[in-house]
């Protein structure tokens, strides 16, 4: 019998080790899996690489994780926010590495990982300072039908933390409004995907036509209070 429902977020994160790459869903305030991030903080891991669109807001969630010093490197598209003071201070003190990635390249690099691709050529970033590797060397480029493209590689996660709305014991998930954002893509790109849900339902209760992430991509479903 398959039962991916895991009542304890800590149990769901038991396999994660120091140095892991952790994909964290969410965009701004929508879809941030705060409860799962809190459990990750409790794991007291070090040297993590975290992938998220932003770099944390205020002092909770991702910002709280950053504050513990658990994160060595952040891969994101838009770290600067009015309330990203935790990241800002770490960055200015050279205590965190930043890989800045155009947002669509971030999403597609995750998709490529989940889809088993070795990378892709994209027009986004061609001819700009972001068509460089983190070490400053140029990324591979190619002219295709007269247009310039940059070669981007996949981003694989050891762990993905996503916030869903409803889930069943097979791990099928639905999302709510624009809180979907990176969740379904990150769920495909990690070895272990943990999804928080507000509601656990019986198998068959989710309309198969409306399941956004099929359970094949999900390792643990953690119920949380609304």
């Amino acid at each position: 019998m398959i039962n991916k429902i895991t009542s304890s977020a800590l149990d769901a994160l038991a396999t994660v080790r120091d140095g892991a790459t952790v994909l964290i869903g969410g965009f701004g305030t929508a879809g941030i899996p705060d409860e799962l991030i809190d459990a990750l903080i409790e794991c007291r891991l070090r040297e993590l690489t975290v992938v998220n669109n932003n770099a944390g807001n205020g002092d909770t969630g991702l910002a709280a994780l950053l504050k513990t010093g658990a994160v060595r490197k952040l891969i994101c598209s838009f770290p600067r926010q009015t309330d990203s003071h935790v990241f800002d201070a770490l960055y200015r003190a050279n205590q965190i590495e930043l890989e800045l990635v155009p947002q669509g390249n971030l999403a597609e690099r995750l998709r490529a990982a989940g889809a088993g691709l070795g990378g892709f050529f994209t027009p986004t970033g061609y001819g700009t300072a972001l068509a460089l590797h983190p070490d400053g060397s140029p990324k591979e480029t190619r002219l295709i039908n007269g247009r310039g493209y940059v070669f981007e590689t996949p981003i694989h996660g050891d762990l993905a933390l996503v916030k869903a709305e409803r889930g069943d014991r097979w791990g099928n998930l639905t999302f709510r409004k624009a809180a979907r954002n990176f969740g379904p893509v990150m769920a495909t790109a990690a070895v272990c995907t943990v999804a928080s849900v507000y509601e656990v339902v019986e198998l068959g209760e989710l309309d198969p036509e409306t399941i956004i992430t099929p359970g094949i991509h999900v390792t643990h479903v953690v119920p949380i209070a609304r």
Partner: protein
Amino acid sequence: MNFLNKRDKAAIAQRVAQDIFDGAYVNLGIGMPTAVANHLPKGIEVVLHSENGILGMGPQPAAGDEDFDLINAGKQPVTLLKGGAYFHHADSFAMMRGGHIDICVLGAYQVSVKGDLANWSTGEVGAIPAVGGAMDLAVGAKETWVMMDLLTKTGQSKVVSSCTYPLTGLACVRRIYTDLCTLSCGPDGLRLVDTVEGLSHADLVNLIGLPIQPASSAGH
């Protein structure tokens, strides 16, 4: 130089909105261009795209009706119109890169005569870089339009022969809407579309310091 007829932000937004056609799929980025939504001509249907996974984005909700699972690219609460849809980030950006968005309107630090865009970084030492979806939008939309003041606070033209700030995209901008004029740009350089009343073509050439072809009688 003081221009009495200078367009304020709302007037620039209104000028941009005049050129948006019925049935267009439009992305208004973040910040200043989002005001275009308030000026869309009556009687046309325009579908607004938000990079975080929304088509059919509606205006901001009434106070008390905010839903923080329903926000725009600038992270402000919005609403969904009838017919609207949600999708994930990879689909949202595939929509851009795939050329399915008709028009995107972005702010800018500089635009070159050939349509190179610089809008994500001033290259200031110590500043925290952030790019978001700007590079994807700039090269992905069928037409990228810029909305900005023509001059910097110190009177320098933001329309330049070549950008000195870090680039967002090469040769991607088609139209430049400003407080003083509307220009087209591209492989053939700058062309005048309109100026505010009282500002002549010669005045504008003087301000920008670059050649500008006269408005084409055959439209643009």
